[in-house]
């Protein structure tokens, strides 16, 4: 990806808590560096996946193909995901990659 920043930082916060429905809020800059910091949380999530997982990307400023791969690892297991709050930049990345069937773009975060 263009201009990988050694200091890039991303966070994931899980809310909802129950086995039926959770929201994963991913914020910061999701690239080949920062994606590694989220891998543990995502692996834990996939070990005990909720029946439904929504994504809140309203705090996400940048995402490269490594970030997309992380989201796809969730969608591969859980099926198509509803994506809320994505900025025009993030929406365009998902659209340009032909992924709107798997990462289904919705409006603002509820």
């Amino acid at each position, binding site marked *: *990806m*263009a*201009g*990988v*920043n050694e200091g890039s930082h991303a966070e994931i916060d899980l809310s909802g808590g129950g086995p039926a429905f959770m929201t994963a809020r991913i914020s910061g*800059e999701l690239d*080949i560096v920062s994606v590694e910091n989220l891998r543990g949380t995502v692996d834990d999530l996939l070990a005990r996946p909720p029946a439904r997982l929504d994504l809140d990307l309203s705090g996400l*400023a*940048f995402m*490269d*193909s*490594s970030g*997309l*791969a*992380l*989201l*796809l*690892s*969730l*969608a*591969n297991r859980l099926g198509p995901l509803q994506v809320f709050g994505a900025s*025009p*930049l993030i929406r*365009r*990345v998902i659209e*340009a*990659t*032909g*992924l709107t*069937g*798997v990462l289904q773009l919705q409006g603002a975060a509820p």
Partner: protein
Amino acid sequence: MIPTGNGRAVFVVGDVSGRGLSAATTMASLRHAIRAYAVQGGGPAVILAKLGELIGQPEEGYFATVLCGSLDVDRHLLTVASAGHFAPLVVEGGTAHYVDLDVGPPIGVLPRQEAPEVTVTVPPGATVVAFTDGLVERRGEHLDVGLDRLAHAAAGHRGSIDDLLGRLLVDLAPAGSDDDIAILGVQWQA
């Protein structure tokens, strides 16, 4: 670029997400598979569908974006299909436009790959440019800004295809970028 006989050829440009061993081995097996499928005579949509079957849905979530095109040199026809990859740019007579293409999901995302193909006529002297995201993507910038920058730079060019590709790389590849950039140009001489 793979010649398939009778004045035809197949080309591919692609990018595998992630840089680990699985990404490298995926790239290698895709390259071999594409060559085999092209020689078997399938068009771009068929080739991409077969690649989708080959790769399936890797658990790690890595994927490959692939643009596949076939050229009918004598009839000036370009047929393309895209699995998550940018459409090619057609440069002709001081203008440049992207082929209007419905982009399917990348290889490795769905069990059944569907990428519709489209056929366009390429005028004499026109150049088709296919590329990877490193050429147009900038952190914090809308993708369309980068795509417009590429189209604008290509449209203003006068000279040979080698000059065109060289200049696009020099002008558009960001300084210090560590992303691999691939660019492929095809020009009809007449």
